[in-house]
């Protein structure tokens, strides 16, 4: 299995197992796209079915959501820098930028938790109506992904500190960077189709 080792190119692509893991993760992301597409479709079908609960237009706060969006977009950018540092062979740069990425991600999560608590105080919960169920589950699933991503990245930071850059650790970092960018893309769709449309309709 470790037969076809390459001598040059990015570390994470050098072993055949590394190449297979990366391809496997791309396929996993395809499955994730289907998962989120189903949630978006559910949201679209249930849009406007607020029953007696307040409508999204009454509750959504553009400023909070805009801050969240920028936090996550910047974290995607810093994550790109982290991988760039990895390619340069700098463990220190990689760890630094990865930590910055995680701090931004934690900021995003903090705002999301604040947002959910705020809505609960305004009287909407998961149980309020079909629309709010789909809202909380769609955004919550994204938030859960971010949470898991942060936990996962912390495990990788420990491994990087212990082992430095090897074909295995760099593969793991590259894969989590794919995951992180993917969550960013999903958020852009949530921002536009949930928040922007929800505020004007």
């Amino acid at each position, binding site marked *: 299995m470790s037969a076809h080792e390459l001598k040059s190119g990015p570390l994470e692509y050098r072993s055949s197992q590394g190449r297979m893991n990366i391809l*496997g993760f791309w396929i996993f992301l395809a*499955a994730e796209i289907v998962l989120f597409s189903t949630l978006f479709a559910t949201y679209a079908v*249930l849009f406007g079915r607020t029953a007696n609960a307040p409508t999204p237009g009454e509750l959504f706060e553009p400023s909070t959501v805009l801050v969240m969006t920028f936090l996550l977009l910047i974290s995607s950018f810093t994550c790109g820098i982290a991988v760039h540092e990895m390619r340069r062979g700098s463990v220190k740069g990689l760890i630094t930028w990865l930590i910055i990425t995680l701090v931004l991600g934690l900021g995003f999560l903090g705002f999301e938790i604040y947002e959910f608590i705020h809505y609960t105080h305004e009287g909407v919960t*998961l149980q309020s109506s079909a629309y709010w169920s789909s809202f909380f589950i769609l955004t919550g699933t994204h938030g859960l992904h971010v949470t898991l991503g942060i936990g*996962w990245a912390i495990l990788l930071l420990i491994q990087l500190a212990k082992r430095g850059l090897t074909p295995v650790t760099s593969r793991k970092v590259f894969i989590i960077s794919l995951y992180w960018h993917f969550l960013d893309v999903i958020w852009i769709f949530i921002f536009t189709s949930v928040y922007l449309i929800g505020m004007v309709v």
Partner: protein
Amino acid sequence: MQLDEFFVTGEPLIYGAMVSIALVTAAIIFILTYFKKWGWLWREWLTTVDHKKIGIMYIISALAMLFRGGMDALMMRIQLAFPGMNFLNAQHYDEVFTTHGTVMIIFMAMPFLIGLMNIVVPLQIGARDVAFPYLNAVSFWSFFFGAMLFNISFVIGGSPDAGWTSYTPLAGAAMSPGPGQNFYLLGLQLSGIGTLATGINFMVTILKMRAPGMKMFQMPIFSWSTLVTSFIIVFAFPILTVALALMTIDRIFGSQFFTLTGEGMPMMWTNLFWMWGHPEVYIVVLPAFGIFSEIISTFARKQLFGYKAMVWSMIVIAGLSFLVWVHHFFTMGMGAFVNSVFSISTMLIAVPTGVKIFNWLGTLYKGRIQLTTPMLWSLAFIPSFVIGGVTGVMLGMAATDYQYHNSYFLVAHFHYVLIAGTVFACFAGLVYWYPKMFGHKLNERIGKWSLWFFVIGFHVCFFPQYFVGLDGMPRRVFTIIPEWMPLNVISTVGAFGMGMGFAIFVYNIYYSLRYNEREKSGDSWDGRTLEWATPTPVPFYNFATVPHVEGLDAYLIMKEKGQTTFDEANLKPIHMPSNTGQPFIMMSIMFVASFGLVFEWLWMAIAGLIGVIVMMAFRSFDYNDGFYVKVDEIKRTERSARGL
């Protein structure tokens, strides 16, 4: 919760089942202890990452599930044989048809085929294992524990009773309170994790690990069907994941997706379910097509006719399978336009399927046909499946579907495609690859007895159901009127014929183990593809030297040139993954978490989920990179396996 709420009480049949479960469990524990086999079980099976052993475990579990689903079927047939039968009451009948459908599709058909894929595909493409052996073990254990979770429902907590489709609002918390429906949701969710992982695993394996020289269009057709199936799995299963999760959240946490209150939409469940459910039908039938293609080509002693057309028709079927889901509920009232669109897309599927039928006939044409048991299963498949397919086109016409919908005509149709397609293929494939798995063939004479009992029983059972359906008998009724009796009696007789066929098949496994001669070479049927190039039993590393593939039917070419997979001059150390107990432990913790959620004991669910996360973290820090098999050991193994 009282103990009599936890255990199902008051049914003599279920008390009987409890006693038999207790006895079988005690017997297994006794045998393992008496013969000191616990260590063997752990080292050789529970911790294995070998694709061949995982495949065997899949198939054994699937046979057990076939037994369970078959017992459900026989109970239903007894109840329906005569008007006014009192064998099962309405509630119990509802539970039995629900578990029959779910078990047969999710825990029998899919695992059986995935088991065959596991054993055969790496061998066919010249690989030493799958791309992710650890993940493969995770897949198996998630299926296994999902199946266990679903199956304990009939003695603990109560079985689901809303049909295998579990339409809301019937399956919602308001109308189906209690743990029954939760068993369905979490059993499927748990095993669904494994199925998705299997899809990813086989896609990467087939795309990346083919033997040198093997182009995509030189791949054996069963490997192609596995690849196409894996695509369908990856794009269909997340829909099921979401649908199940939403209903679970509806039931346990009070959200309003499929409810009648809070402006929920029960019909959305139906759509989501079938957006997965229809592709699922092709997940279980495309590998079956692949198996039949291999067998027909081997025993007609000809190259598969129209190989490229076969591949492309599978790809087209896979694409269309996502565009037809509405035909499962034409009568739900989407309007003429929507129904027409889905009616046409449904009928379109008959085109590539027809191409495949003609290609099988073309392969048989002027072939030197050997009527072995696997070949007979395949020959029985073709006409039986055509009957199922043609009645499927009848059902696909939206206007006429208003007549057939929810009748026994539909029941007959899908049993004709699923049994003649999938179940025949499972038997055929198992008999065909049996020598590769266990080192001896199944007895041909007993095998043919089981085949004739099963095939004739199948037609006797299901052909009358078309007519009783046209006479107006609806599906899912627990009692019949006198006018439907004659055909139902015939049907019940046929069902017992199938039961006999299965019993003879199982007896054949025992008989062949005792008395059949052991295989001397790895090439039991004068095969054409690479799995027959390996010795029997297959060494754990599969190929001592990986052959260079030069065309379709790679092993046939090798045989002509006198090549083997044991090129002594070119042996190199082989890298293999280490065994690990982590997948088994992780998924047993997941089982505990799911069980907690079934009973809505959140503390148990949360504790279990934390356990799973700890296991995943543990895996992240696990840098075990496997081991190397030394050249000497390869030489010794191959020499003794090949009798050199």
